[in-house]
């Protein structure tokens, strides 16, 4: 009797017992939130709050001293008439087009070469990765010395070859020199992404094309390129996001001089040199919106490419 009574109590208590917190958190219903919430908290603190803070100050005049003064859309109006800002924007777009195109072309060319097996391939690939491993600021300082007119290694080599010295940092060339440094550092990224893509392509399709007598150019145009297009789009999207924020190559070289001031540099100068937080925030918001817009378009194209690839 006693045993039976006890077991009834036990059964009742089991039925009535609330699940432990850990059980709730790991239950099927809540587990996804358990995993997501820490990330969302971090994002809210480090991304959403600064973004809202930035958006708030873009409507104010504030230099970190005293109260911020609400000025409506005046900062935005000023931005649209700011010659220096518009020039920086134009230059950024120019750098974006030049760098993305060159990196893709070089990357694709090298990927086609390196996707085959050849003696010493690991050494070559390892060396090609080096530019990516060096801090961009250090790299820009090094290139600054290498491109120096009188002492720079590049001009010394040109002279040794009997050629004239080139003024790499002249106002006409400086922006292209910045592009060169950026391309030099980042071409391995597109190369290795595309090498991985090429190696994962199904061999049977290419073999069939070969049997059908398709020329290498036709195979490349009709098979390789369409199959690689999702990866190409990923490279374009990522590089676009990074290039809109290009900063380090300027810091170690021209510091925004000789007509090389880019979007991120002017934002930095305004917000963290003049500490004109209001106007700097406006520029930052504009830069963010631009990045989102460009990337949204790219993303749409990427999705279409993925659909096509399927």
């Amino acid at each position, binding site marked *: 009797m006693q045993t039976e009574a006890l077991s009834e109590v036990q059964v009742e208590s089991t039925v009535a017992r609330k699940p432990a917190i850990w059980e709730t958190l790991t239950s099927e219903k809540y587990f996804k939130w358990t995993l997501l919430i820490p990330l969302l908290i971090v994002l809210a603190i480090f991304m959403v709050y600064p973004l809202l803070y930035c958006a708030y100050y873009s409507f104010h*005049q504030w*230099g*970190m*001293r005293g109260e911020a003064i609400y000025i409506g859309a005046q900062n935005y109006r000023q931005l649209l008439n700011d010659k220096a800002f518009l020039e920086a924007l134009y230059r950024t777009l120019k750098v974006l087009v030049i760098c993305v195109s060159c990196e893709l072309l070089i990357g694709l060319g090298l990927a086609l070469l390196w996707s085959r097996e050849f003696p010493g391939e690991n050494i070559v690939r390892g060396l090609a990765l080096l530019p990516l491993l060096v801090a961009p600021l250090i790299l820009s300082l090094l290139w*600054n010395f290498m491109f*120096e*007119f*009188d*002492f720079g290694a590049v001009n010394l080599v040109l002279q040794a070859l009997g050629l004239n010295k080139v*003024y790499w*940092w*002249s*106002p006409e060339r*400086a922006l292209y020199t910045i592009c060169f440094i950026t391309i030099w550092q980042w071409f391995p990224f597109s190369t290795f992404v595309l090498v991985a893509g090429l190696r994962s392509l199904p061999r049977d399709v290419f073999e069939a094309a070969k049997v059908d007598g398709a020329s290498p150019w036709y195979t490349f145009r009709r098979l390789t390129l369409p199959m690689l297009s999702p990866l190409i789009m990923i490279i374009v999207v990522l590089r676009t996001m990074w290039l809109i924020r290009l900063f380090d190559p300027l810091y170690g*070289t*021209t*510091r*925004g*001089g*000789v*007509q090389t*001031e880019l979007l991120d540099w002017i934002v930095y*100068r305004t917000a*963290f*040199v*003049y*500490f*004109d937080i209001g106007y700097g925030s406006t520029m930052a918001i504009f830069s963010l919106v631009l990045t989102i817009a460009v990337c949204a378009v790219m993303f749409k194209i990427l999705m279409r490419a993925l659909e096509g690839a399927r």
Partner: protein
Amino acid sequence: MRYRGIVIGSLVVVLLLVCSFAVLAQEKFGLKDIPEIKNKKPINMIVETGAAWDKVIEYIKQFETATGVKVNIERVASPVVYSKENVELMAGTGYYDVVYVETSWTCEWSDYLWDLEELAAQYDPKGVEGFREDIHNISPVLLRCGQAYGKQMVLPFYTYHMGMFIREDVYNDPTEQAAFKAKYGYDLKPPTTYKELYDQAEFFTRKKGDLLKGKTLDHDLYGVAMMAGAYQINDEITSWIWGMGGDYATVVKNPDGTIKEFVITKKDKDILKQALTQYKALLKFAPAGCLTANFDFACAQQGEGFAIIQPHQFASLFTWTADLLKQKVPDGRLGIYPTVGGQPYTGAWSLGVAKATKNPEAAYWLVRYIASYDCQKVLMKEGGQFSARMDLLLDPEFHSPEVEYPLGIVCSYLVDIWQKQAPYVDNYWYFNTRAGGKVYEMQMNVLHKPMAEEVTIDECVEELVAKTIELTSKFDTVPIREE
């Protein structure tokens, strides 16, 4: 005879006593003079990266041992110092107890720094007088740069006062002297006017294969080396306009000495325009790399024997340039002179105490210690920087025949130029405005533009005036207007 011995003995004793008193009277403030610090909370400070501080940091450890106060040191590159400190000061966090200050930021940060005399009154057993007695050895120019509205906010520890570096061996060469006189009709001597500077820059600009001091050149030679990059061009232009009696804005004072307003006068604008025009004209005698150059490039050009004159350069770089020249051109010798107009850009890295500090007592004594004779000597002897203290620059140790060139002559130059320039410093706009730091940074960018053909000189002046007014209106309470 017996009395003669006693008299002589007494005289010797008296003499020894007098000497001892004299030595004691001359004894400088040092670590031993710091009283017991009651507040033991650790203090934080930021310092530049570089060899100078590598040495001083070892001496800061002695401060820690003597006082029992831990000093946490954060080291950053000099271009980052301002932004890092500015945020903490404005937010009043008190994170940095000792603040690293470029003298043109003194007024701007004056609301966030302690008046050092107030701290002296509170913590120094000798009071304000003891403080003043020690700092009167510091350059009057640099002390004034470290003041805001009459209050001593910071103490300078090393200077970057500018000067003009010339190749003295070339100037003293009879062949060059004769050729110059024949061409320009006057003697070759360090330039004191713009015309002389232009003539000499033109005269010394030569091609590979031409002669210099009767020897064939194996490289192109440039008359001048300048820093026209978007980083230090404003220091050069400042020297130029101060030398012409102008400024970025004129400080108008009330009869009681307080500042009434800033006016960008027509004269200021004309002088700026003229200075920019002359500077740009001179660039054709400078290496092409000058358009992106900082101090290191310009000094390297002269040190390598590629340039004859650096019209404006930080005096602290003289010894480095001279040493480099000695390696590359064994018979080469540099000289240092005032820049054209005799009012070179001035300033110093300095230290102050943050108002929000949690330990003003220890922070004050650390600032005093680093500005002391002993610590400054370390900075100069081992760190290779030039002290802000005149008593140190005149120390016979730095003027012995072995070190007179290049070290001693820079010391003498600095003491001399400080005395000559002292009457003018009070009216320099940089050291009277709270917008100095912001305007200084803006100038780097704007003044560089006409040199890079991005804008015309007229457009540059227009932009500079507009931005100076905009930034000053935002960051200073003193009204500013354009005449």
